Structure formats: C-alpha cells, structure tokens
C-alpha cells in the first residue's frame, strides 16, 4: 500500500509507457507524501470490468493510507494524470484519477500492520529487527 491500479482500454498504454508511468507514480507518491518507494505498487490492467472506464480511456484508482490532506491528493491526481498524458499520448480529459483512503490499521504488509503516515522509519526498523530475529 499504496496500490495504484490503472485500467485502460485495450492497447492504449503499451508496456514501455507502463514502465515510465509506474516510475512516475512511484516518484510522485514518494515526493508528495515522503513515503518510502518500497510500499508503492503500480499495476496495469486492460478493460477490467471491476474498474469501469465509462467514457474515459484510462482510469487510475489509487488506494493510499488515510491521513494525506486534500492538497497532497490533488497534487497526486494532477501529476499522475499528466504522466499518463505524456507517456500514453492520451488527452487529459480522457484520463480519470481517483484517490481512495484506506486506514493503515486495516492493511498488513510484510507480516506487519502498516505504519501510520510519518511513522515509516520506526516501522522499517522494527520490521527489519523482527526479520533478523526470525532468521537468527
């Protein structure tokens, strides 16, 4: 978590563009939130029925840990739309980006409940110590 899942019409985002957009998604999320890149998942699917495109060609749903403010979310939305526009060649109004909050306490990654925003450093320290103890 975060999970950024992009659904697009078949063929409109090729693999080379996906790689560039995934790099941008990771960079943008980390720049805006100060979260570590290790947590960032960027996945792409095509014509997925569970993510209706409606009248768009691409729909990016970002499920992020709750606690980010409206300004941060607006920046993520704008910069990720721009990335898809630049790399896939889609018009901006043909791209929808939505951010959805998920409480960190609902999510487990690496066998541990996710840290609240801003508590990542302590989480990694504890997580690595736990892994070292398990491997000793």
């Amino acid at each position, binding site marked *: 978590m975060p*999970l950024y899942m992009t659904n697009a019409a078949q063929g409109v985002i090729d693999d080379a563009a996906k*790689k560039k957009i995934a790099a941008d998604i990771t960079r943008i999320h980390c720049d805006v939130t100060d979260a570590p890149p290790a947590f960032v998942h960027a996945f792409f699917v095509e014509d997925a029925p569970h993510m209706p495109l409606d009248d768009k060609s691409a729909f990016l749903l970002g499920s992020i840990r709750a606690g980010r403010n409206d300004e941060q979310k607006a920046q993520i939305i704008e910069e990720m739309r721009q990335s898809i526009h630049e790399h896939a060649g889609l018009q901006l109004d043909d791209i929808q980006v939505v951010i959805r909050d998920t409480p960190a306490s*609902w*999510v*487990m990654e690496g066998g541990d409940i996710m840290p609240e925003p801003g508590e990542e450093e302590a989480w990694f320290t504890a997580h690595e110590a736990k892994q070292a103890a398990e491997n000793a």
Partner: protein
Amino acid sequence: MTTCNCIVQAGQISGEIQAALRAGLDKFTQEKFGSAAEIGWVEIPPGSGYTANKPSTSSIVSLAPGEPVEQSARIEMLQELCDLWAGETGCTLDEIVGVINDPA
C-alpha cells in the same frame, strides 16, 4: 457473502495453487465471518506490475466482510490470512499485502 479480491502477477500462481487458495479463502471467511467467499481474481499481465519501481512479485488479497471488525481481531485475521497465502504459494510475507476492510 464476504467479498475477497485477489490481485496476483500472471504466471506466478498455478491453477492448482489457485484452487487451493480459493478453498482456503472460502474456509477462512466461513470460519471468521460465517459466509462464503465471493472471490474476484485479477491477474496482472507480464510487464504490467511494478512494486518499488521494479517488476512486481506482490499479491494483494483484500477482504470486505459485511460487518466491522475489532482491531485486535483484524490483526489476528490478517496474520492468518497472510500465512495462508504464503503457505499455499511459497511467497514470502514481504510479497503479500493483506487488507480487511470495514463496511463503508
């Protein structure tokens, strides 16, 4: 029904393991929530999944039971869920994201 959405990397989980996971998830939701698992299964095509800006080997398993879950119970369930997934797939816990949502 307890909705259970699974997102996996294509080619990472065989049909046999998927069947075992489906059975295990159904047993899990029956035991914990008293309802069958309504499983959604999404495979991320090759070249389409990235974690930490590298090709991903991560799986996401997200449950949406019909009732709120107390936090200490949620943690125990998540540990059991992630252990179930790791046991069936051979993935490490670092490759598994488990989520148990409360109703909106």
